[in-house]
């Protein structure tokens, strides 16, 4: 009888140990466990990355409620020589693989360079002379100004896009 209890007890212990071993394997060492871990890491990255994205976009309130207004504000800043302010009317870089992600460094650097070379006037002239080009916008979220010289030669487009998070229009490219 004693042996019977012993055998049953031992069997129970073995069962528990087996379950425990399986649990340990499947939750910490199995391919599925590793995949779950990777998933959680990715999810964490994704969540924090998108939160940062939204926060940056919401905080980006420089610009007008219309494309014309933003362009005028940009020109005014240039006329005053306020490069820092002028650069803020550009859209944040949304290329997640760029070192300049969620910054406006590229625009700021370019403006500083133009300023150092005395060429801000050229940007102002182009910005002032550019005309709305509704046929070039791919949707209502976009707005395009096109600039041509007196001979009709295409000079450049100024693309604006609305920042849906903050509701202001931003210069996307020039």
């Amino acid at each position: 009888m004693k042996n019977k209890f012993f055998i049953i007890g031992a069997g129970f212990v073995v069962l528990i140990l087996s379950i425990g071993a399986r649990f340990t394997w499947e939750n910490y060492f199995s391919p599925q466990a590793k995949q779950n871990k990777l998933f959680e890491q990715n999810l964490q990255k994704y969540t924090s990355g998108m939160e940062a994205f939204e926060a940056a976009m919401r905080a980006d309130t420089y610009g007008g409620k219309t494309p014309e207004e933003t362009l005028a504000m940009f020109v005014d800043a240039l006329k005053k020589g306020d490069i820092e302010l002028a650069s803020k009317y550009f859209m944040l870089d949304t290329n997640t693989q760029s070192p300049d992600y969620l910054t406006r460094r590229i625009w700021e650097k370019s403006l500083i360079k133009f300023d150092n070379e005395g060429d801000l006037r050229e940007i102002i002239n182009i910005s002032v002379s550019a005309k709305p080009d509704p046929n070039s916008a791919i949707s209502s979220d976009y707005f395009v100004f096109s600039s041509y010289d007196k001979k009709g030669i295409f000079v450049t487009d100024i693309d604006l896009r609305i920042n849906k998070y903050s509701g202001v229009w931003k210069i996307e490219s020039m």
Partner: protein
Amino acid sequence: MERLILFSLVLSFLFISFPRESFAYNIGTHAYLTDEIVNFYNKNFLGNQIPEGFRNYMIDGSRKEDDNIRPMNHFYDPVNNVGFHDSLLGSWEKSKDWANNQTNQNSVKYKVPATIASILSAAQTGKISGISSETNFTWHKALEYYVNGEKEKAFFALGHILHLIEDASVPDHTRNDPHPGDSPYENWTDKFKLNNKDSGLPGRLNGKSPIQLSDLNSYFDGLAKYSNNNFYSKNTINSGYFLPQADYFRIESDGKSYGIKIDNEFGDYPVVRANGVFSFNNDELLNRPTIMSQYWSRLSTKSVQYGAGIVYLFFKEAEMAKNDPNFKKQNQKSFLASIGEAIRGIFQSADNAGNSDITDTISGAIFDNSTQSDEVNSEDIGEKSILSPEKGDIETDEGTVEADEGTVEADEGTVEADEEIIETSEGNSEMDALNERIDSLISKTANLKSKALARKTIPEVVSLKTPPATSMPKLPPVQAPPVQAPVVQQPTLPPIVYYPPVTYYYYYNQTTNTTSTATSTNSSNGGNNSTSTNTNATSSALNSVGTSTFSNTIFVSELLFHATGDGGDVGKEFVELYNDGNQSLNLSGWSLKYFRSDSTSTNSLALFGESEHTADRMVIPAKGYLLVGLNDYNAVNYSGTAADILRTASLPNVSGASEGVAITAYLFDNIGAGVGGLAYTNTSISQAGQSLERKAKPTGNCISAGSGEGEFAGNSCSGSQSGDFETRSNPKPQNSGSLPEPRMAPNLTGASLTYSSSTMKLVFKWNEALDSMGDALSVRYEIRNASTSEIFATTSAAIGLSRSIDEIGRNYAFFLRAFDRDGLGSPPANLSADVPSFFSNLYFYRDSRSGGGNVVDAYYGNYPFIPGSYGNWKLVLLYVNSAAPKDANLIENNKFSPADNSNLAILSYLRCSGDGYVTSNKFILLPEGDHCSSLGGGLNPQGMSGLEDFHFIVPIAVPSGVTDFGPSAYVTAAFYDYSSTIGGYANFRLAAADKRQYHFQSAPPPSLPPLAPADVTLQFDSLHSALNLAWPKATDPDSLDNNIFYEFNYSSSTEFSPAGWQSTGRNLSASVPVNFPHGYKIGVRAVDDFGNISQPVAKNWNFPTNYNPFPHQNDASQIVGTSNGAGQRIFIQIGSNAGKIGMTVGKGAGPYSVTDTFIGIYSDNNGSMGNLIATTTDVNYQWPMEDHPSARSLEFSFISPIYLNSNSYYWLVPMNGPGISNTNYIFGSAGDSYSDGYWSGDMGKDASFFLQ
């Protein structure tokens, strides 16, 4: 279980509340594309259409694949074979794996409440209610539903798969571009929904067929490559991927320049927009309707073609699965596995629920959201739950709602019909009919050879090329045939009978002569190969000696027992078998063993087809191979060649204590008869890593199978020949999927090479080649440099490619070969193309013109002779005595200086504007247009003037340290094209470097003379008895027209005196004095700056008829018209009648007038005025009293002509008429009369006379 639910809710909150952005087509666009896929499938498979009642399940499934975090697995980059990966947003599974990964899709991580509302009606939802919490919508699961008769669920899951293939058509998804919220393509395509369809899509699909491929992965590969290779995403323009590249640039009607890609299927299209004259940050852009519409028209069409092909594949595989007992087995979990999973789930949820970070995020909002999700109705149907920038909202899009409502209403219309189908399902329901039709389809297509499927082409990598989709068979409605047996190709046993005893071959090492101790009796010759040799023996251990011989069909053809590198032999040992017969053989029951010469025991390596090895592939094809992988063989070590039979047993190495021991690997058939083998010792290979391979015997003699003629000629060298085996340093195991040997190489024909000067590309073309199995898809083409044999380009499944070049002025020579998938190549096709320089010629010589020096005289064709894409500004750099380097970019603010400017030629040329002539430029800036641009600004002051006659001549300085150029001196050139303006400075990129050497010559090349002026006009100036000559500008075919000088000549004879040519410089007029009554010959000619003289343009001239040759009194110094009657004395050389007298009054210092005047002629009296001979009539004419700015003339006529004698003097005297009492005949103002013949301050030039 409660904790599990709690955990799910936690996650659901997490998913719903964290910020999300657009990562795909809008779900409305997915719905629309899926709808079109159903239409297109039904149109192409009239006899097997998808019943209308299932359409919405597919649409809904395709919408809901975007639920929660699933979209992160919707990326597939076929170039790098990865899913989405990003240091900021994590690394996710590629979509083609996600479509098959049940484990991942079943993960509790995805088991969160749906946030995308359904478009299904309540009745429809009820039919799939069992999967409301399901997240496994893999391909396999869809098949499983279908096999189990759960059609609605099957189509719902299939919709998920279609979503994934639709996303593979989005460039952002195949180029690893997450683009949070600003994908131009997805923003533009957002408009296409069920209630706003693309009216052009059905038209584009006309004449096209569903793409038909052999498996699901091929669909992902094909479409992903198409979208990756031919389209940009916003952040991957010229970044991260080699393709696409614009083939040429074109300015469209909006005046803007677009990069155009050649497309033979849909027509050329803009792939990117270039910058304008001004560029702030040098961004090339996509976001233009002109571009996006072209992207969509191609990608949507392909998406539907591929999607319809997938639906076809689904039905095909589903029917096969129905009859596959293994399919159902795979879906059954063991009881223990289920228990284990349940326990794991409990612990896992407990573990996760205990995570305080996650728990802390729980709020009532999750229940609100759940409620919202559960209570969604038609008005709540949103399309952007994952797209919304607002947390937790299920955004409502009214326009979409209308569309979906419409769909829902339609569904409701079909609900009753569906119910009826169910009610009659026990009889001959619609689904049964569908099943029967599909059964029929499968049975009809079962015999389609795999190669027919494999012929579907994936777009090739370089040039845009449409997969040559084979038309799907249009299957008519058919009677339901009996269910066919599973379509499995069973090998037919060859007509070979094995009788024991058998004669078989094995090998022993001659050095150790260990064969005699092996398991057979050596009865034949030994070889003399240093490693092993062939001995014909009969078995004694396994069979008794007999007379029947074994038909020598199966060989041990290659064996590796001792590998090298990390891990030693693990994963690398194999035995390869070769079937020399013409029939495939099923080797089930065969075995592979080995014996040691120092032991009598038998060691099993593999028994083929053991019950626990269900994955064994045992059919060895005719002339094909079967691979037995040993010691955890890993295909990674052999270019992915998988073992057909995989075992853990290992072949012994024979080193150390085992040296000298012979190991015999031996093959036995299914009745235990020995078939053949191979013995080896430690000396069989010279170094670890070598395999032993049986030689080929294509024509009677054994030759090496490692290279040359025998490389693809099988491995059937056997018998009494010595040296049947050889060592192979690069082992190359082949398996049952390998192509047969010997076989024909791919038939490469129609190879050509041309050079496209407009795109600067070498264009290779050839006809599609087929391998020996008739397959074109797996044929690889390889182009090698003819001189270096280096690989220039490779491609697969293509009929051509093009490659940009940056060296010109040279010949390109290649050889092209087509290889089948196992490496057998066609004979090379030699290809060659001459790529000319941009200069048609260039002369480098000592200038013979005034000023001397040395010049470069470069000729070209049409301007601009440097092809380019952005603007017409071009840059030429010349290098002295060195090859032009290929600096990629030159920038204006660095004076366009390359990194190494030590050999740059110093040039001089006249600029278009600015500071004129420059004397020390190290570049030539060629202006827009073939002359200086009128645009001004920017580069114009630097631009070169003097482009004419398709060439320019520029002085070149002798480099410092060099006395002068000699015959060995030469120049080379590099050409650049304007690319952009960055920060106000022009940026040029390399177009090409000219490899030609233009050598110096001491004299100019022959040059052509200028053309004579087109005409010369002659105007007789009778007043001065002179001819005024004028002519238009002449031209010169090879020098500047502005440098032409002109010379004139005149002669009263018929010939010009050579010395009579007088130069006018660059003036286009001259005056020649003429004397009456001679005739004259007048000529003008042009002289260029090299001294070349044109033929003269000449005319003869005579005095006009009735010309009165009276002298002209040019000199008015003599007194005329004075009050005392004084006049002007004239001399008549030739006697003649005078009919008129003209009087010209020169411009004076003040106003004057003439009133009532006539002229009298007086005789001469030794220098004094004599008697009046005659008077003219009175000219009652009055010049007003005014200031006369120029000379004015009056004519006075005689009533009848007066003859004046030759060689006589006369006087001409102005006289006052009867109405004038004043003695002044010409009146001046302010008392300054003309009585003295002139006005003060203008003496001698006041008046003159002439006679006519």
